[in-house]
Protein backbone atom coordinates (compact mmCIF):
# COMPACT_ATOMS: atom_id res chain seq x y z
CA UNK A 1 0.00 0.00 0.00
CA UNK A 2 2.66 2.50 1.05
CA UNK A 3 4.81 2.16 -2.13
CA UNK A 4 1.74 2.77 -4.29
CA UNK A 5 0.89 5.84 -2.25
CA UNK A 6 4.44 7.15 -2.57
CA UNK A 7 4.22 6.57 -6.31
CA UNK A 8 0.95 8.53 -6.44
CA UNK A 9 2.51 11.42 -4.54
CA UNK A 10 5.61 11.42 -6.77
CA UNK A 11 3.51 11.30 -9.94
CA UNK A 12 1.22 14.09 -8.79
CA UNK A 13 4.20 16.16 -7.65
CA UNK A 14 5.97 15.74 -10.98
CA UNK A 15 2.85 16.72 -12.91
CA UNK A 16 2.26 19.84 -10.84
CA UNK A 17 5.94 20.76 -11.00
CA UNK A 18 6.12 20.38 -14.79
CA UNK A 19 3.06 22.51 -15.42
CA UNK A 20 4.12 25.21 -12.97
CA UNK A 21 7.71 25.27 -14.18
CA UNK A 22 6.59 25.53 -17.78
CA UNK A 23 4.26 28.42 -17.16
CA UNK A 24 6.69 30.28 -14.89
CA UNK A 25 9.86 30.01 -16.91
CA UNK A 26 8.69 29.68 -20.52
CA UNK A 27 8.31 32.66 -22.92
CA UNK A 28 4.72 33.69 -23.74
CA UNK A 29 4.12 34.58 -27.38
CA UNK A 30 0.55 34.30 -28.61
CA UNK A 31 -0.59 33.96 -32.18
CA UNK A 32 -3.78 32.85 -33.89
CA UNK A 33 -2.66 29.27 -34.39
CA UNK A 34 -2.34 28.81 -30.65
CA UNK A 35 -5.98 29.72 -30.15
CA UNK A 36 -7.16 26.96 -32.51
CA UNK A 37 -8.53 23.79 -30.96
CA UNK A 38 -5.36 21.98 -32.09
CA UNK A 39 -2.08 23.65 -32.89
CA UNK A 40 -1.31 20.98 -35.40
CA UNK A 41 -3.17 18.09 -36.98
CA UNK A 42 -6.56 17.97 -38.62
CA UNK A 43 -8.79 21.02 -38.33
CA UNK A 44 -12.23 20.33 -36.86
CA UNK A 45 -14.54 19.82 -39.82
CA UNK A 46 -17.36 22.37 -39.80
CA UNK A 47 -19.87 20.40 -41.85
CA UNK A 48 -19.92 17.36 -39.59
CA UNK A 49 -21.58 19.25 -36.82
CA UNK A 50 -25.11 20.49 -37.24
CA UNK A 51 -27.30 21.83 -34.51
CA UNK A 52 -25.40 20.38 -31.56
CA UNK A 53 -25.79 16.79 -32.69
CA UNK A 54 -22.99 14.35 -33.25
CA UNK A 55 -23.23 12.38 -36.48
CA UNK A 56 -24.69 9.00 -35.79
CA UNK A 57 -21.72 7.11 -37.20
CA UNK A 58 -19.70 7.98 -34.11
CA UNK A 59 -22.20 6.10 -32.04
CA UNK A 60 -21.87 3.10 -34.33
CA UNK A 61 -18.12 3.16 -33.77
CA UNK A 62 -18.72 3.49 -30.06
CA UNK A 63 -21.08 0.51 -30.02
CA UNK A 64 -18.62 -1.61 -32.01
CA UNK A 65 -15.81 -0.74 -29.66
CA UNK A 66 -17.86 -1.33 -26.51
CA UNK A 67 -19.23 -4.69 -27.65
CA UNK A 68 -15.81 -6.08 -28.48
CA UNK A 69 -14.33 -4.45 -25.38
CA UNK A 70 -16.83 -6.36 -23.26
CA UNK A 71 -15.99 -9.57 -25.07
CA UNK A 72 -12.31 -9.09 -24.27
CA UNK A 73 -12.95 -8.29 -20.62
CA UNK A 74 -14.75 -11.63 -20.26
CA UNK A 75 -11.77 -13.43 -21.80
CA UNK A 76 -9.41 -12.17 -19.10
CA UNK A 77 -10.87 -13.94 -16.01
CA UNK A 78 -11.40 -17.05 -18.10
CA UNK A 79 -7.79 -17.03 -19.22
CA UNK A 80 -6.29 -16.62 -15.76
CA UNK A 81 -8.51 -19.37 -14.33
CA UNK A 82 -8.16 -21.59 -17.38
CA UNK A 83 -6.21 -24.36 -15.63
CA UNK A 84 -9.10 -24.92 -13.22
CA UNK A 85 -11.90 -24.70 -15.76
CA UNK A 86 -10.70 -27.20 -18.32
CA UNK A 87 -12.79 -28.38 -21.21
CA UNK A 88 -16.10 -27.05 -19.86
CA UNK A 89 -14.76 -23.52 -19.66
CA UNK A 90 -13.28 -23.83 -23.13
CA UNK A 91 -16.58 -24.97 -24.65
CA UNK A 92 -18.60 -22.23 -22.94
CA UNK A 93 -16.09 -19.59 -23.97
CA UNK A 94 -16.13 -20.85 -27.55
CA UNK A 95 -19.93 -20.59 -27.57
CA UNK A 96 -19.65 -17.04 -26.29
CA UNK A 97 -16.97 -16.05 -28.78
CA UNK A 98 -18.88 -17.65 -31.65
CA UNK A 99 -21.99 -15.61 -30.90
CA UNK A 100 -19.94 -12.45 -30.81
CA UNK A 101 -18.28 -13.56 -34.05
CA UNK A 102 -21.73 -13.63 -35.62
CA UNK A 103 -21.87 -9.93 -34.70
CA UNK A 104 -18.60 -9.41 -36.51
CA UNK A 105 -19.80 -11.18 -39.65
CA UNK A 106 -23.02 -9.17 -39.57
CA UNK A 107 -21.29 -5.82 -39.11
CA UNK A 108 -18.81 -6.59 -41.83
CA UNK A 109 -21.39 -7.62 -44.43
CA UNK A 110 -23.60 -4.66 -43.58
CA UNK A 111 -20.75 -2.23 -44.15
CA UNK A 112 -20.54 -1.15 -40.54
CA UNK A 113 -16.75 -1.15 -40.74
CA UNK A 114 -16.67 1.42 -43.54
CA UNK A 115 -16.31 5.09 -42.78
CA UNK A 116 -18.39 6.43 -45.69
Amino acid sequence: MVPILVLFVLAAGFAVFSVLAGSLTGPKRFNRAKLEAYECGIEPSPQAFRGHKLPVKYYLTAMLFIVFDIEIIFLYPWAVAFDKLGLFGLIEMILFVVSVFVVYAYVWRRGGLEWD
Partner: protein
Amino acid sequence: MSLTQSIDYAAISPPLVVVVTAVAVLLADLFVSAEVRRRLLAPLALAGTLGALGATAWLATGPARSTFCLAGGGCSYVADGFATYFQTIVLAALVVVLLLSYPLFDERERVPPGQVPAAEFLALMLMSVSGMLVVAAGRDLLTLLIGLEVVSLPAFVLVGLRRGDPRGVEAALKFFVFSVVSTALTIYGIALVYGTTGSIELHHIAHALSTRHAHSGAMSATAAAGVVLVLVGFGFKIAAVPFHFWAPDTYQGAPVPVAAFLSVASKAAGFAGLIVLLVVGFRPYADVWGPAVGVLAAVSMTVGNLVALRQRNVVRLLAWSTVAHAGYLLMPLAVASSQLREGVRATLAYLGIYAAMNLGAFGCAVLVRRLHPRLAIEDLRGLVTRAPLTAVAFGLFLTALAGLPPGVAGLFAKVVVFRAAVHGHVTWLAVVAAVNTVIGLAYYLRVAALMFVPADDAPVAPSSRTWSVSAGVAIAAAVTVVLSVYPQPLLHLASTAAQR
Protein backbone atom coordinates in the same frame (compact mmCIF):
# COMPACT_ATOMS: atom_id res chain seq x y z
CA MET B 1 -17.46 -29.29 -4.83
CA SER B 2 -17.60 -29.29 -8.57
CA LEU B 3 -15.88 -26.42 -10.28
CA THR B 4 -18.28 -26.23 -13.16
CA GLN B 5 -22.00 -26.42 -13.79
CA SER B 6 -23.70 -29.23 -15.64
CA ILE B 7 -26.03 -28.31 -18.45
CA ASP B 8 -29.22 -30.11 -19.40
CA TYR B 9 -29.63 -29.02 -22.99
CA ALA B 10 -33.14 -30.47 -23.17
CA ALA B 11 -34.31 -28.11 -20.41
CA ILE B 12 -33.00 -25.01 -22.18
CA SER B 13 -34.10 -26.16 -25.63
CA PRO B 14 -36.86 -23.52 -26.11
CA PRO B 15 -34.60 -20.47 -25.74
CA LEU B 16 -31.77 -22.31 -27.48
CA VAL B 17 -33.90 -23.06 -30.55
CA VAL B 18 -35.10 -19.45 -30.66
CA VAL B 19 -31.56 -18.00 -30.45
CA VAL B 20 -30.26 -20.39 -33.09
CA THR B 21 -33.16 -19.40 -35.34
CA ALA B 22 -32.37 -15.71 -34.81
CA VAL B 23 -28.74 -16.26 -35.78
CA ALA B 24 -29.78 -18.37 -38.76
CA VAL B 25 -32.11 -15.60 -39.97
CA LEU B 26 -29.33 -13.01 -39.69
CA LEU B 27 -26.77 -15.16 -41.47
CA ALA B 28 -29.22 -16.25 -44.15
CA ASP B 29 -29.91 -12.60 -44.89
CA LEU B 30 -26.19 -11.90 -45.26
CA PHE B 31 -25.17 -14.76 -47.48
CA VAL B 32 -28.21 -15.73 -49.58
CA SER B 33 -29.57 -14.10 -52.72
CA ALA B 34 -32.35 -11.54 -52.42
CA GLU B 35 -34.93 -13.73 -54.14
CA VAL B 36 -34.39 -16.70 -51.83
CA ARG B 37 -34.26 -14.34 -48.89
CA ARG B 38 -37.68 -12.86 -49.55
CA ARG B 39 -39.28 -16.30 -49.51
CA LEU B 40 -37.15 -17.85 -46.81
CA LEU B 41 -36.77 -15.54 -43.84
CA ALA B 42 -40.27 -15.24 -42.41
CA PRO B 43 -41.05 -18.97 -42.81
CA LEU B 44 -37.69 -19.77 -41.19
CA ALA B 45 -38.55 -17.61 -38.17
CA LEU B 46 -42.00 -19.15 -37.96
CA ALA B 47 -40.58 -22.67 -38.18
CA GLY B 48 -38.11 -21.93 -35.41
CA THR B 49 -40.89 -20.58 -33.21
CA LEU B 50 -43.05 -23.63 -33.84
CA GLY B 51 -40.05 -25.84 -33.07
CA ALA B 52 -39.52 -24.07 -29.76
CA LEU B 53 -43.24 -24.38 -29.05
CA GLY B 54 -43.01 -28.12 -29.68
CA ALA B 55 -40.02 -28.39 -27.34
CA THR B 56 -41.94 -26.49 -24.67
CA ALA B 57 -44.97 -28.75 -25.04
CA TRP B 58 -42.72 -31.77 -24.71
CA LEU B 59 -41.08 -30.31 -21.59
CA ALA B 60 -44.50 -29.54 -20.11
CA THR B 61 -45.54 -33.20 -20.31
CA GLY B 62 -42.42 -34.42 -18.54
CA PRO B 63 -41.18 -33.85 -14.99
CA ALA B 64 -39.64 -30.50 -14.02
CA ARG B 65 -36.03 -30.19 -15.15
CA SER B 66 -33.44 -28.03 -13.44
CA THR B 67 -30.15 -27.00 -14.92
CA PHE B 68 -27.26 -24.60 -14.31
CA CYS B 69 -27.46 -25.67 -10.69
CA LEU B 70 -25.23 -23.92 -8.18
CA ALA B 71 -22.72 -25.87 -6.19
CA GLY B 72 -24.42 -24.77 -2.96
CA GLY B 73 -27.93 -25.82 -4.04
CA GLY B 74 -30.51 -23.97 -6.11
CA CYS B 75 -30.58 -23.68 -9.87
CA SER B 76 -30.42 -20.78 -12.31
CA TYR B 77 -32.89 -22.30 -14.74
CA VAL B 78 -35.89 -24.49 -13.88
CA ALA B 79 -38.22 -25.78 -16.59
CA ASP B 80 -41.23 -26.58 -14.42
CA GLY B 81 -44.96 -26.16 -15.00
CA PHE B 82 -44.73 -22.44 -14.24
CA ALA B 83 -41.94 -21.85 -16.74
CA THR B 84 -43.50 -23.89 -19.53
CA TYR B 85 -46.87 -22.16 -19.00
CA PHE B 86 -45.31 -18.75 -19.62
CA GLN B 87 -43.07 -20.03 -22.39
CA THR B 88 -46.10 -21.45 -24.18
CA ILE B 89 -47.94 -18.12 -23.93
CA VAL B 90 -44.92 -16.16 -25.18
CA LEU B 91 -44.20 -18.50 -28.09
CA ALA B 92 -47.84 -18.75 -29.14
CA ALA B 93 -48.03 -14.95 -29.01
CA LEU B 94 -44.90 -14.80 -31.18
CA VAL B 95 -46.55 -17.05 -33.79
CA VAL B 96 -49.49 -14.66 -34.02
CA VAL B 97 -47.26 -11.55 -34.03
CA LEU B 98 -45.10 -12.99 -36.83
CA LEU B 99 -48.25 -13.55 -38.88
CA LEU B 100 -49.44 -10.02 -38.14
CA SER B 101 -46.12 -8.46 -39.09
CA TYR B 102 -45.66 -10.23 -42.41
CA PRO B 103 -46.95 -7.27 -44.52
CA LEU B 104 -44.41 -4.99 -42.79
CA PHE B 105 -41.59 -6.39 -44.89
CA ASP B 106 -43.51 -7.15 -48.05
CA GLU B 107 -41.79 -5.26 -50.84
CA ARG B 108 -45.05 -4.67 -52.67
CA GLU B 109 -46.49 -3.00 -49.62
CA ARG B 110 -47.45 0.61 -50.30
CA VAL B 111 -49.35 1.52 -47.16
CA PRO B 112 -47.24 4.12 -45.36
CA PRO B 113 -44.94 4.11 -43.48
CA GLY B 114 -43.79 1.20 -45.53
CA GLN B 115 -41.58 -1.75 -45.01
CA VAL B 116 -38.94 -2.54 -42.43
CA PRO B 117 -35.81 -4.67 -42.92
CA ALA B 118 -37.09 -8.23 -42.60
CA ALA B 119 -34.02 -10.04 -41.28
CA GLU B 120 -33.31 -7.53 -38.54
CA PHE B 121 -36.96 -7.32 -37.53
CA LEU B 122 -37.29 -11.08 -37.25
CA ALA B 123 -33.92 -11.64 -35.59
CA LEU B 124 -34.49 -8.91 -33.01
CA MET B 125 -37.94 -10.21 -32.22
CA LEU B 126 -36.60 -13.74 -31.78
CA MET B 127 -33.81 -12.48 -29.54
CA SER B 128 -36.29 -10.57 -27.41
CA VAL B 129 -38.37 -13.74 -27.11
CA SER B 130 -35.33 -15.77 -26.07
CA GLY B 131 -34.94 -13.31 -23.20
CA MET B 132 -38.59 -13.84 -22.24
CA LEU B 133 -38.14 -17.60 -22.23
CA VAL B 134 -35.13 -17.22 -19.94
CA VAL B 135 -37.01 -14.86 -17.60
CA ALA B 136 -39.87 -17.38 -17.32
CA ALA B 137 -37.50 -20.11 -16.16
CA GLY B 138 -34.83 -18.01 -14.42
CA ARG B 139 -34.53 -18.57 -10.69
CA ASP B 140 -31.80 -16.19 -9.64
CA LEU B 141 -31.58 -12.42 -9.69
CA LEU B 142 -28.75 -12.23 -12.19
CA THR B 143 -30.44 -14.50 -14.73
CA LEU B 144 -33.70 -12.59 -14.34
CA LEU B 145 -31.94 -9.26 -14.80
CA ILE B 146 -29.97 -10.27 -17.89
CA GLY B 147 -33.05 -11.98 -19.29
CA LEU B 148 -35.05 -8.80 -18.79
CA GLU B 149 -32.34 -6.81 -20.56
CA VAL B 150 -32.41 -9.22 -23.49
CA VAL B 151 -36.17 -8.67 -23.65
CA SER B 152 -35.87 -4.88 -23.63
CA LEU B 153 -32.87 -4.07 -25.80
CA PRO B 154 -34.19 -5.55 -29.09
CA ALA B 155 -37.61 -4.08 -28.27
CA PHE B 156 -36.24 -0.50 -28.35
CA VAL B 157 -34.95 -1.12 -31.84
CA LEU B 158 -38.15 -2.82 -33.00
CA VAL B 159 -40.15 0.21 -31.90
CA GLY B 160 -37.92 2.63 -33.80
CA LEU B 161 -37.25 0.46 -36.83
CA ARG B 162 -39.32 2.40 -39.36
CA ARG B 163 -37.05 4.90 -41.05
CA GLY B 164 -37.98 8.52 -41.38
CA ASP B 165 -40.88 8.17 -38.98
CA PRO B 166 -40.50 10.81 -36.25
CA ARG B 167 -43.25 9.23 -34.16
CA GLY B 168 -41.34 5.95 -34.19
CA VAL B 169 -38.15 7.68 -33.05
CA GLU B 170 -40.02 9.45 -30.25
CA ALA B 171 -41.65 6.19 -29.22
CA ALA B 172 -38.34 4.35 -29.13
CA LEU B 173 -36.62 7.14 -27.23
CA LYS B 174 -39.30 7.32 -24.53
CA PHE B 175 -39.28 3.56 -24.20
CA PHE B 176 -35.49 3.54 -23.95
CA VAL B 177 -35.17 6.30 -21.35
CA PHE B 178 -37.86 4.89 -19.08
CA SER B 179 -36.44 1.42 -19.41
CA VAL B 180 -32.91 2.51 -18.58
CA VAL B 181 -33.98 4.42 -15.48
CA SER B 182 -36.13 1.59 -14.18
CA THR B 183 -33.36 -0.93 -14.87
CA ALA B 184 -30.92 1.24 -12.93
CA LEU B 185 -33.29 1.23 -9.96
CA THR B 186 -33.71 -2.53 -10.26
CA ILE B 187 -29.97 -3.09 -10.28
CA TYR B 188 -29.63 -0.92 -7.20
CA GLY B 189 -32.36 -2.98 -5.56
CA ILE B 190 -30.57 -6.20 -6.49
CA ALA B 191 -27.40 -4.84 -4.93
CA LEU B 192 -29.27 -4.08 -1.70
CA VAL B 193 -30.96 -7.50 -1.63
CA TYR B 194 -27.65 -9.22 -2.34
CA GLY B 195 -25.93 -7.13 0.30
CA THR B 196 -28.46 -8.00 2.98
CA THR B 197 -28.96 -11.68 2.07
CA GLY B 198 -25.58 -12.66 0.63
CA SER B 199 -27.14 -14.55 -2.24
CA ILE B 200 -28.69 -14.03 -5.65
CA GLU B 201 -30.48 -17.38 -5.67
CA LEU B 202 -34.16 -16.95 -4.86
CA HIS B 203 -34.57 -19.80 -2.34
CA HIS B 204 -31.50 -18.65 -0.43
CA ILE B 205 -32.81 -15.10 -0.52
CA ALA B 206 -36.16 -16.23 0.88
CA HIS B 207 -34.40 -18.05 3.68
CA ALA B 208 -32.12 -15.14 4.53
CA LEU B 209 -34.94 -12.61 4.25
CA SER B 210 -37.10 -14.48 6.72
CA THR B 211 -34.34 -14.23 9.35
CA ARG B 212 -33.75 -10.58 8.43
CA HIS B 213 -37.45 -9.88 8.71
CA ALA B 214 -37.61 -11.39 12.19
CA HIS B 215 -35.23 -8.72 13.52
CA SER B 216 -36.47 -5.32 12.56
CA GLY B 217 -33.82 -2.63 12.20
CA ALA B 218 -31.70 -0.99 9.58
CA MET B 219 -30.82 -4.29 7.88
CA SER B 220 -34.47 -5.23 7.54
CA ALA B 221 -35.39 -1.79 6.23
CA THR B 222 -32.58 -1.95 3.69
CA ALA B 223 -33.78 -5.35 2.49
CA ALA B 224 -37.31 -3.94 2.17
CA ALA B 225 -35.99 -1.01 0.14
CA GLY B 226 -34.17 -3.48 -2.10
CA VAL B 227 -37.34 -5.51 -2.60
CA VAL B 228 -39.33 -2.42 -3.56
CA LEU B 229 -36.64 -1.16 -5.97
CA VAL B 230 -36.43 -4.53 -7.72
CA LEU B 231 -40.18 -4.40 -8.24
CA VAL B 232 -39.91 -1.04 -10.00
CA GLY B 233 -38.19 -2.63 -12.98
CA PHE B 234 -40.92 -5.20 -13.34
CA GLY B 235 -43.61 -2.56 -12.84
CA PHE B 236 -42.14 -0.82 -15.86
CA LYS B 237 -42.13 -3.99 -17.92
CA ILE B 238 -45.80 -4.70 -17.24
CA ALA B 239 -46.72 -1.01 -17.68
CA ALA B 240 -48.41 -0.63 -14.30
CA VAL B 241 -49.18 2.92 -13.15
CA PRO B 242 -47.03 4.92 -12.22
CA PHE B 243 -44.45 3.21 -14.47
CA HIS B 244 -46.72 3.34 -17.51
CA PHE B 245 -45.84 6.71 -19.07
CA TRP B 246 -43.96 5.14 -21.96
CA ALA B 247 -46.73 2.74 -22.94
CA PRO B 248 -49.30 4.84 -24.88
CA ASP B 249 -46.74 6.80 -26.91
CA THR B 250 -44.61 3.74 -27.56
CA TYR B 251 -47.54 1.60 -28.66
CA GLN B 252 -48.84 4.33 -30.93
CA GLY B 253 -45.47 5.13 -32.49
CA ALA B 254 -44.38 1.52 -33.00
CA PRO B 255 -45.60 -0.64 -35.86
CA VAL B 256 -48.90 -2.12 -34.66
CA PRO B 257 -47.62 -5.74 -34.56
CA VAL B 258 -44.75 -4.57 -32.35
CA ALA B 259 -47.27 -2.92 -30.04
CA ALA B 260 -49.14 -6.23 -29.90
CA PHE B 261 -45.87 -7.96 -29.10
CA LEU B 262 -45.04 -5.53 -26.29
CA SER B 263 -48.51 -5.59 -24.80
CA VAL B 264 -48.74 -9.39 -24.65
CA ALA B 265 -45.39 -11.18 -24.82
CA SER B 266 -43.34 -8.55 -23.04
CA LYS B 267 -46.01 -8.09 -20.38
CA ALA B 268 -46.21 -11.87 -19.87
CA ALA B 269 -42.46 -12.03 -19.35
CA GLY B 270 -42.66 -9.17 -16.87
CA PHE B 271 -45.34 -11.01 -14.93
CA ALA B 272 -43.35 -14.26 -15.00
CA GLY B 273 -40.37 -12.52 -13.41
CA LEU B 274 -42.55 -10.56 -11.00
CA ILE B 275 -44.43 -13.62 -9.75
CA VAL B 276 -41.33 -15.72 -9.32
CA LEU B 277 -39.64 -12.93 -7.39
CA LEU B 278 -42.59 -12.20 -5.13
CA VAL B 279 -43.69 -15.76 -4.48
CA VAL B 280 -40.32 -17.48 -4.22
CA GLY B 281 -37.72 -14.90 -3.31
CA PHE B 282 -39.48 -12.09 -1.47
CA ARG B 283 -42.22 -14.17 0.20
CA PRO B 284 -41.07 -13.22 3.75
CA TYR B 285 -41.65 -9.58 2.88
CA ALA B 286 -45.22 -10.16 1.72
CA ASP B 287 -46.40 -7.60 4.28
CA VAL B 288 -44.25 -4.98 2.50
CA TRP B 289 -44.95 -5.78 -1.13
CA GLY B 290 -48.54 -7.03 -0.71
CA PRO B 291 -50.08 -3.62 0.01
CA ALA B 292 -47.75 -2.00 -2.55
CA VAL B 293 -48.96 -4.40 -5.24
CA GLY B 294 -52.56 -3.78 -4.17
CA VAL B 295 -52.14 -0.02 -4.56
CA LEU B 296 -50.40 -0.48 -7.93
CA ALA B 297 -53.27 -2.68 -9.09
CA ALA B 298 -55.96 -0.23 -7.98
CA VAL B 299 -54.18 2.80 -9.45
CA SER B 300 -53.33 1.00 -12.71
CA MET B 301 -56.86 -0.08 -13.46
CA THR B 302 -58.40 3.24 -12.44
CA VAL B 303 -55.99 5.46 -14.35
CA GLY B 304 -55.92 3.12 -17.36
CA ASN B 305 -59.68 2.97 -17.68
CA LEU B 306 -60.35 6.66 -17.00
CA VAL B 307 -57.79 7.82 -19.54
CA ALA B 308 -58.96 5.25 -22.08
CA LEU B 309 -62.38 6.91 -21.97
CA ARG B 310 -60.94 10.03 -23.57
CA GLN B 311 -58.93 8.41 -26.37
CA ARG B 312 -59.61 9.08 -30.03
CA ASN B 313 -57.10 6.67 -31.56
CA VAL B 314 -57.65 2.92 -31.65
CA VAL B 315 -54.08 1.96 -30.69
CA ARG B 316 -53.93 4.51 -27.87
CA LEU B 317 -57.25 3.19 -26.57
CA LEU B 318 -55.87 -0.34 -26.61
CA ALA B 319 -52.66 0.88 -24.96
CA TRP B 320 -54.53 2.41 -22.02
CA SER B 321 -56.67 -0.70 -21.88
CA THR B 322 -53.51 -2.81 -21.45
CA VAL B 323 -52.49 -0.51 -18.59
CA ALA B 324 -55.86 -1.20 -16.97
CA HIS B 325 -55.45 -4.93 -17.56
CA ALA B 326 -52.06 -4.82 -15.81
CA GLY B 327 -54.09 -3.71 -12.81
CA TYR B 328 -56.50 -6.66 -13.06
CA LEU B 329 -53.52 -8.99 -13.47
CA LEU B 330 -51.80 -7.58 -10.38
CA MET B 331 -54.92 -7.72 -8.22
CA PRO B 332 -54.75 -11.41 -7.22
CA LEU B 333 -51.10 -11.02 -6.22
CA ALA B 334 -52.08 -8.56 -3.49
CA VAL B 335 -53.88 -11.22 -1.44
CA ALA B 336 -52.83 -12.38 1.99
CA SER B 337 -49.86 -14.69 2.11
CA SER B 338 -51.84 -17.86 2.92
CA GLN B 339 -53.99 -17.45 -0.22
CA LEU B 340 -51.09 -16.58 -2.50
CA ARG B 341 -51.17 -19.82 -4.45
CA GLU B 342 -54.77 -19.25 -5.49
CA GLY B 343 -53.86 -15.69 -6.37
CA VAL B 344 -51.02 -16.80 -8.62
CA ARG B 345 -53.35 -19.30 -10.28
CA ALA B 346 -55.85 -16.52 -11.00
CA THR B 347 -53.19 -14.24 -12.50
CA LEU B 348 -51.89 -17.06 -14.68
CA ALA B 349 -55.37 -17.93 -15.96
CA TYR B 350 -56.15 -14.27 -16.63
CA LEU B 351 -52.90 -13.84 -18.51
CA GLY B 352 -53.65 -16.79 -20.82
CA ILE B 353 -57.05 -15.37 -21.76
CA TYR B 354 -55.73 -11.80 -21.95
CA ALA B 355 -53.03 -12.92 -24.40
CA ALA B 356 -55.59 -14.32 -26.85
CA MET B 357 -58.06 -11.43 -26.72
CA ASN B 358 -55.51 -8.64 -26.70
CA LEU B 359 -53.49 -10.09 -29.60
CA GLY B 360 -56.76 -10.42 -31.49
CA ALA B 361 -57.68 -6.80 -30.82
CA PHE B 362 -54.28 -5.53 -32.02
CA GLY B 363 -54.55 -7.86 -35.04
CA CYS B 364 -57.86 -6.26 -35.93
CA ALA B 365 -56.16 -2.87 -35.60
CA VAL B 366 -53.61 -4.05 -38.19
CA LEU B 367 -56.46 -4.99 -40.55
CA VAL B 368 -58.36 -1.74 -39.95
CA ARG B 369 -55.17 0.23 -40.57
CA ARG B 370 -55.16 -0.87 -44.19
CA LEU B 371 -58.53 0.85 -44.67
CA HIS B 372 -57.93 3.79 -42.35
CA PRO B 373 -54.22 4.57 -41.86
CA ARG B 374 -54.95 7.16 -39.15
CA LEU B 375 -56.72 4.56 -37.01
CA ALA B 376 -59.04 7.16 -35.47
CA ILE B 377 -61.90 5.64 -33.53
CA GLU B 378 -64.32 7.72 -35.60
CA ASP B 379 -63.08 5.84 -38.70
CA LEU B 380 -64.61 2.66 -37.35
CA ARG B 381 -68.14 3.95 -37.92
CA GLY B 382 -69.96 1.47 -40.12
CA LEU B 383 -67.00 -0.87 -40.40
CA VAL B 384 -69.39 -3.81 -40.54
CA THR B 385 -70.49 -2.91 -44.07
CA ARG B 386 -66.95 -2.35 -45.34
CA ALA B 387 -65.17 -5.27 -43.69
CA PRO B 388 -67.79 -7.50 -42.06
CA LEU B 389 -65.47 -10.23 -40.81
CA THR B 390 -63.01 -7.77 -39.29
CA ALA B 391 -65.83 -5.93 -37.55
CA VAL B 392 -67.25 -9.16 -36.12
CA ALA B 393 -63.83 -10.31 -34.88
CA PHE B 394 -63.02 -6.88 -33.42
CA GLY B 395 -66.39 -6.87 -31.68
CA LEU B 396 -65.65 -10.28 -30.18
CA PHE B 397 -62.26 -9.17 -28.83
CA LEU B 398 -63.56 -5.87 -27.45
CA THR B 399 -66.46 -7.52 -25.62
CA ALA B 400 -64.03 -10.14 -24.31
CA LEU B 401 -61.72 -7.37 -23.01
CA ALA B 402 -64.75 -5.76 -21.38
CA GLY B 403 -65.85 -9.09 -19.91
CA LEU B 404 -69.23 -9.40 -21.61
CA PRO B 405 -70.91 -12.01 -23.82
CA PRO B 406 -70.28 -13.00 -26.57
CA GLY B 407 -66.65 -12.75 -25.45
CA VAL B 408 -67.33 -15.01 -22.46
CA ALA B 409 -63.63 -15.85 -22.06
CA GLY B 410 -63.03 -12.35 -20.70
CA LEU B 411 -65.89 -12.83 -18.24
CA PHE B 412 -64.33 -16.08 -16.97
CA ALA B 413 -61.03 -14.26 -16.54
CA LYS B 414 -62.66 -11.47 -14.53
CA VAL B 415 -64.55 -13.97 -12.35
CA VAL B 416 -61.33 -15.84 -11.57
CA VAL B 417 -59.44 -12.76 -10.41
CA PHE B 418 -62.42 -11.40 -8.46
CA ARG B 419 -62.83 -14.71 -6.64
CA ALA B 420 -59.13 -14.78 -5.78
CA ALA B 421 -59.29 -11.21 -4.44
CA VAL B 422 -62.36 -11.87 -2.29
CA HIS B 423 -61.00 -15.16 -0.93
CA GLY B 424 -57.70 -13.48 -0.24
CA HIS B 425 -59.33 -10.78 1.95
CA VAL B 426 -58.66 -7.82 -0.30
CA THR B 427 -62.33 -7.04 -0.82
CA TRP B 428 -61.61 -3.32 -1.19
CA LEU B 429 -59.57 -4.12 -4.27
CA ALA B 430 -62.35 -6.26 -5.68
CA VAL B 431 -64.73 -3.30 -5.22
CA VAL B 432 -62.32 -0.98 -7.06
CA ALA B 433 -62.03 -3.56 -9.84
CA ALA B 434 -65.82 -3.88 -10.07
CA VAL B 435 -66.22 -0.13 -10.50
CA ASN B 436 -63.47 -0.23 -13.11
CA THR B 437 -65.11 -3.02 -15.04
CA VAL B 438 -68.15 -0.77 -15.40
CA ILE B 439 -65.98 2.12 -16.61
CA GLY B 440 -64.32 -0.29 -19.03
CA LEU B 441 -67.70 -1.29 -20.47
CA ALA B 442 -68.26 2.31 -21.47
CA TYR B 443 -65.35 2.61 -23.86
CA TYR B 444 -65.17 -0.93 -25.16
CA LEU B 445 -68.86 -0.93 -25.99
CA ARG B 446 -68.76 2.56 -27.47
CA VAL B 447 -66.17 1.38 -29.99
CA ALA B 448 -67.89 -1.95 -30.61
CA ALA B 449 -71.25 -0.24 -31.17
CA LEU B 450 -69.72 2.30 -33.55
CA MET B 451 -68.57 -0.49 -35.86
CA PHE B 452 -72.08 -1.87 -36.17
CA VAL B 453 -73.75 1.41 -37.05
CA PRO B 454 -75.08 0.76 -40.54
CA ALA B 455 -73.44 2.79 -43.28
CA ASP B 456 -74.03 2.78 -47.02
CA ASP B 457 -70.43 2.01 -48.01
CA ALA B 458 -69.76 -0.95 -50.25
CA PRO B 459 -67.79 -3.88 -48.76
CA VAL B 460 -64.07 -3.71 -49.49
CA ALA B 461 -62.52 -6.87 -50.89
CA PRO B 462 -59.68 -7.94 -48.55
CA SER B 463 -56.27 -7.50 -50.12
CA SER B 464 -54.48 -10.72 -51.03
CA ARG B 465 -51.51 -9.63 -48.98
CA THR B 466 -53.38 -9.70 -45.69
CA TRP B 467 -53.94 -13.45 -45.60
CA SER B 468 -51.26 -13.85 -42.93
CA VAL B 469 -52.76 -11.07 -40.80
CA SER B 470 -56.18 -12.68 -41.19
CA ALA B 471 -54.67 -16.02 -40.20
CA GLY B 472 -53.19 -14.44 -37.06
CA VAL B 473 -56.51 -12.84 -36.13
CA ALA B 474 -58.30 -16.13 -36.88
CA ILE B 475 -56.00 -18.01 -34.51
CA ALA B 476 -56.62 -15.47 -31.75
CA ALA B 477 -60.37 -15.59 -32.42
CA ALA B 478 -60.41 -19.39 -32.39
CA VAL B 479 -58.55 -19.47 -29.06
CA THR B 480 -60.89 -16.86 -27.58
CA VAL B 481 -63.97 -18.78 -28.71
CA VAL B 482 -62.62 -22.09 -27.42
CA LEU B 483 -61.77 -20.49 -24.06
CA SER B 484 -65.26 -19.00 -23.94
CA VAL B 485 -66.87 -22.40 -24.36
CA TYR B 486 -64.42 -24.66 -22.62
CA PRO B 487 -61.98 -22.84 -20.33
CA GLN B 488 -61.31 -25.81 -18.04
CA PRO B 489 -58.03 -26.97 -19.65
CA LEU B 490 -56.52 -23.50 -19.27
CA LEU B 491 -57.67 -23.22 -15.66
CA HIS B 492 -56.26 -26.66 -14.99
CA LEU B 493 -52.92 -25.74 -16.57
CA ALA B 494 -52.83 -22.54 -14.55
CA SER B 495 -53.37 -24.38 -11.28
CA THR B 496 -50.67 -26.93 -12.16
CA ALA B 497 -48.32 -24.08 -12.97
CA ALA B 498 -49.12 -22.38 -9.66
CA GLN B 499 -48.30 -25.57 -7.68
CA ARG B 500 -44.71 -25.05 -6.95
